[in-house]
């Protein structure tokens, strides 16, 4: 069953049932949607592209849990029905397509780029960075912006002013990068945003992340940064 909603025609989302063949154990929920689109009902709308869990397009609620539909295997649900709905906590544009403009603004607001007091010229070559310095931020750099963590976040569900798990994890990614000196520009954006102090250790964001990012940890660490300046990450300490 999949959610159908066309703002031109419908006042509210509804579920529609489809029967599809399941000839192959390798089939994922997305293959089921593609079968429907190609052979049963061309009007069903959803986003997808890479089909290998890296582009972040195909996040949906599958039986109530946020999932990348490209690696949610039908065999794990069969013989029960599979209910596919748009990600929770987002406005719906159409069917399974959510409106994620809010995240795009939030992403920009945390200044997700390297900030330096002085840029070094290209001719000077690369910044030296050790593997252990990369390890400091590695997991936070794995975010594919799939929005599953926002769909799982009880705080974002109540208050969409909250920056949210992925944006804070990405701010953390730059704050912890030995090449970056922008923490003081980012910290106020995060500390002043609504919601961060409401975030409890629920950690649903980290549970649903398909890439092993731990946004809950980023949020707790960021809370510490705002109170304990003497423990700032490497690139952002005063000389």
């Amino acid at each position, binding site marked *: 069953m999949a959610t159908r909603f066309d703002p031109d025609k419908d006042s509210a989302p509804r579920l529609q049932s489809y029967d599809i063949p399941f000839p192959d154990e390798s089939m994922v929920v997305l293959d089921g949607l593609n079968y429907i689109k190609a052979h049963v009902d061309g009007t069903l709308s959803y986003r997808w592209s890479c089909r290998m869990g890296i*582009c972040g397009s195909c996040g949906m609620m599958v039986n109530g849990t946020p999932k990348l539909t490209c690696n949610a295997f039908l065999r794990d649900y069969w013989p029960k029905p599979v209910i596919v709905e748009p990600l929770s906590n987002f406005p719906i544009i159409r069917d399974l397509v959510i409106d994620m403009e809010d995240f795009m603004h939030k*992403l920009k607001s945390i200044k997700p780029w*390297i900030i330096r007091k002085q840029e070094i010229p*290209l001719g000077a070559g*690369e910044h030296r960075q050790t593997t252990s310095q990369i390890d400091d931020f590695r997991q936070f750099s794995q975010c594919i912006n799939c929005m599953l963590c926002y769909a799982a976040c009880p705080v974002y569900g109540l208050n969409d002013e909250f920056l949210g798990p992925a944006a804070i994890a990405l701010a953390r990614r730059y704050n912890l990068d030995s090449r970056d000196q922008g923490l003081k520009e980012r910290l106020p954006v995060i500390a002043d945003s609504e919601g961060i102090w409401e975030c409890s250790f629920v950690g649903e964001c980290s549970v649903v992340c398909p890439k092993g990012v731990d946004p809950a940890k980023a949020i707790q660490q960021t809370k510490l940064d705002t109170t304990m300046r003497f423990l700032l990450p490497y690139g952002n300490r005063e000389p």
Partner: protein
Amino acid sequence: MESYDVLVVGGGLAGLRAAIAAVETNPRIKVGMVSKVYPMRSHTVSAEGGAAAVLRPEDSYETHAYDTIKGSDYLADQEVVEAFVREAPIEVIQMEHWGCPWSRDPDGKISVRPFGGMTTWRTCFAADKSGFHMLHTVFQTSLKYKQIHRHDEAFVTKLLIEGSRCVGVIALDQRSGRFDAITAKAVILATGGLGRVYAFTTNGNICTGDGMALAYRAGVGLKDMEMVQFHPTGLPFTGILITEAVRGEGGYLTNSEGERFLKRYVPNKMELGPRDIISRAMTVEFEEGRGFEGPHGKYMHLDVRHLGEDLIDRKLPFMRELGREFVGIDIVHEPIPVRPVQHYMMGGVDADISCATAIPGLYAAGECANVGLNGGNRLGSNSLSECLVFGAAAGRAASAYASSVSAVATNPIDAMLWDEARRVESAYLEKTGGEERIGTIREEMQRDMDAGAGVFRTREGLDKLTEQLGGLRERFERIKIEDSSRTFNTELTAALELDFMLEVSQSIVASALAREESRGAHARRDFPERNDEKYLKHTVAFSRASESARPRLEYRDVHITNFKPQARTY
């Protein structure tokens, strides 16, 4: 009506790099970016292995150029390759300054790994998610430029040509269903590849050759379209890419007899031979009965068990994740099933060394372009570097051009917008009475292309394919569109994409049929030898007025500077 100095179509690595270069060339200009997906969804995200650049004292520009030219089977334009190898290191360092988490050596410098067809270690990498990290780095960096304005999830249906100049595009805003004319003094196409014309491909759903078809319809030639790359190692069924870096790090390819069969094909390079040759070797082994048989066809083993868990987790963690999630194996303990899979398009929009096309104001970069870098076969890890080097070149050239010409008159644009919106509405949205499903035609096209324009080709197969594509084009005229909504109508965009794919497929087949030799990725069973006398030339295909007519082909000399064509053995 939105108006820009430079408009970039496509938000992948080449497009984003172009947008930033355009602004940095002239900070006073306004740059637009139209992409049918949010930029971080672009297919660059799936690139794994790395980006080639000469960074080490023991390496040299000459060797990188030679490897690339030999890899191209001498169909690359050599002055383009020579410029490329000099720019690539600068671009890799630029990415580092922007925050790309390149994997490092113990001294903190950017690490390099071996790659197919490269004589030395020169592939920079961010574990085995290089494309993902590069795309997110350059996208996030682009957010700091106030001069860059994005139109996300807008689908370009037509290039605006006024007089002889390209002056913008017409785009369908997917969310509202509205058609917009977006004008610009210069337009850069950076729309990526066309892998979805094949059934078995590593390419994402969005790789439908849009930019190639847009330029082709506007009268620009498509160059070397017969040169389609098949990557040796895709997962059966899904076509998910298993990076060449698996072999770069020491993985073995073995057949069903447990033999490293490449010793019969590329004895001096073994697993680090170029993609075209290894894909052919695997196909021959399959034909001769030395492949494994699986539920999704024949396959080989790609074995990394001897590399150890530590190296795999450091350098190939995504491969372990893909194996676990999509095949249900742990590559530390089990070999990976792989077979050749469509991966990359060497051919593309005919553009010169500065990415300019034959239409003033129109540029092309990245996979959708053919600037003459890759010839008959691209070497692994040259394409991420290509996106950076030629994305930047296109941005600079378009920026300079935009600063030198006057703005566009808006009067004729209004009429063009009206005409194009009416064309799409009447052909698709208001269409009644069709009976053909888009999905069915698309699947048939993909199956036919796999069969007729795959690793090996014959005249017979290509003739049959020409007929099949002609039939599919006729049936496309009778498609049924069930979705008449204006809001996020993905059946409409699927129809527009299928229209583009049928168009570019035809250019692939016509170009392949006419090249009666074997060179690079174009292997003709009926003409197994390379023929420099006749075919040391680029094929350039031009569209005829009618969509069903076969393309007109021209040939153009390859630019040879320092590397005389030789037999290509490894």
